């Protein structure tokens, strides 16, 4: 059975090994344990009444929405993990809870960059969490207007995290911005144009450049190419793949699109109605999905 022996499928222990990830990760940069997010009023039975087996994230008794529950994974440097699932399955919720955009209901998230992983960042105060976003952890959103100020130039958008990190030299900001924009293949003659005048693909490249400004160790990508047309998306994907390899980043890629997950990630977890139903190596999952939902998802993607 080889590696398959280590695979974990919700509801049954395939090889007697149940843990945060199918393969233990050496020196994880990002560790997520028991992450959960519930909207509305829940009670002791809410968790049992929701999830993939129950067929809904909504508790029929209390009306609470269990957007995500019991999510566990680890990511090491130079590794990318995918979170795949249909719309509403909770994958973006997980990412936003890690990033600090949303307040998690439960769980334990550790970054090796924050107090050497000795502290659960979910318990840190909002100011501390915002500071982590300056140089430890960056997010690339599906909608560039979430990650960029559209009325500001491409260079100015990169100046923001740089000045937040204390850079006070105009020349150094220009230099770093040019460097990042060249790397993300944004023509340098557009550095001083406002981002609103950029195409979708170009905005996404600027957003990636900005996310990398202070060399974070962790990059969270939320549907980074959704909304771009196929050829542009392919270019952005190539760029992201190159960057992940080159910069030794620990990355989490959220997507409903298997081609994105396949191209960028080594491992992935499948979410359905707020729960992780399967976690596996990406190519294995695509070849031989175990959970019925994963099977449906893969066959739909392969059709």
């Amino acid at each position: 059975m080889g590696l398959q022996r280590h695979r974990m499928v919700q509801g049954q222990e395939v090889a007697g090994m149940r843990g945060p990830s199918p393969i233990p990760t050496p020196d994880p940069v990002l560790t997520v344990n028991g992450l959960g997010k519930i909207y509305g009023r829940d009670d002791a039975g809410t968790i049992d009444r929701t999830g993939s087996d129950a067929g809904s994230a909504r508790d029929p008794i209390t009306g609470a929405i269990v957007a995500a529950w019991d999510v566990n994974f680890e990511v090491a440097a130079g590794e990318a993990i995918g979170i795949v699932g249909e719309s509403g399955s909770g994958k973006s919720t997980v990412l936003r809870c890690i990033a600090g955009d949303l307040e998690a209901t439960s769980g334990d998230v550790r970054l090796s960059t924050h107090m050497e992983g000795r502290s659960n960042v979910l318990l840190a105060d909002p100011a501390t969490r915002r500071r982590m976003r300056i140089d430890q952890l960056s997010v690339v959103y599906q909608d560039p207007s979430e990650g960029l100020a559209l009325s500001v130039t491409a260079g100015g958008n990169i100046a923001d995290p740089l000045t937040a990190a204390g850079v006070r030299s105009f020349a150094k900001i220009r230099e770093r911005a040019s460097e990042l924009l060249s790397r993300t293949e944004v023509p340098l003659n557009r550095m001083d144009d406002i981002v609103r005048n950029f195409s979708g693909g170009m905005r996404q490249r600027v957003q990636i450049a900005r996310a990398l400004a202070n060399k974070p160790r962790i990059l969270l990508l939320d549907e980074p190419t959704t909304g771009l047309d196929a050829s542009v998306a392919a270019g952005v994907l190539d760029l992201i793949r190159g960057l992940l390899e080159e910069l030794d980043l620990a990355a989490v890629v959220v997507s409903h699109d298997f081609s994105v997950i396949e191209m960028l990630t080594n491992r992935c977890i499948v979410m359905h109605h707020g729960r992780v139903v399967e976690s596996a190596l990406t190519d294995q999952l695509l070849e031989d999905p175990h959970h019925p939902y994963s099977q449906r998802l893969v066959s739909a993607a392969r059709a």
Partner: protein
Amino acid sequence: MTVTDNTTNRLDSLGASGDGPSFAILDEESKREIRRALLQAVAVPGYQVPFGSREMPVARGWGSGGLQVTLAIVGPDDTVKIIDQGDDEGVNAVNLRRLVVSSTGIPETTEAREASIIQSRHRIPEDELTATQTLVLQVPVPEPLRGIERDVRELARMHAEADYSRMWVSLYEDKVRNGVITQSTGYPCLVNGRYVVATTPIPRWDIPRLHMSQFLTLFGAGREKRVYAIPPHTIVEPLTFDDVPFEVERIEGAACRLCGSTDSFLVDSSGEVDSWACSDTAWCRARRSQG
């Protein structure tokens, strides 16, 4: 009639002495409230302290904030100078000065050195101010981040966390678009290494004089109900990049057509070409009389 008489009697008995309006217009409770806000402002340099801005006999936006600060701190031994731009004879300055003087009976002056309280809208007098003097600035917009963020909760958060990166971005954008940082009056400054303040509406020329000054500067914004302060001996740094030096206004070759000064803040006096004159009229006059 009886009702009116009773009311009048009662109102009279409420006054401290019952013989006419209170010293410096404001009642003692109001002065105390403003002084408490000012003490907090001095204790936390650059922090904008809310206060219950009163209705004043001048419209908001016409110096009502500065006026309330002056009236809250003025005592019978003070001497007041009030200027608009650098001019003691500006209409608004004259009206405010009459109001302060008539409600307190204190002496007025146009000489900056003689005044213990100087209320101003656009300038710091050219004369060097001393530790015994207080500068009161009327502030139209106390929030330095207003141009980049409108949500007051977000503004409060940015100040609380000293999260000023978007301010830096706006300076960056200014420099990129215009080759220089164009912000002239109200240049943003970091006070005591902590809070960014709007130095509205003084010109850049006056900014360096706020740094490690001998005198206390109190800022009052009546419309926006905020006071803040720069105490003496406080570090005031205009926000600028390390490699883009902060520069004050200077017009090559310009001199005051009245006193010939080239080292004071000059304004275009008549609309004609090259008709520069000192903005601080009292200082200019003194220079001329000295010959």
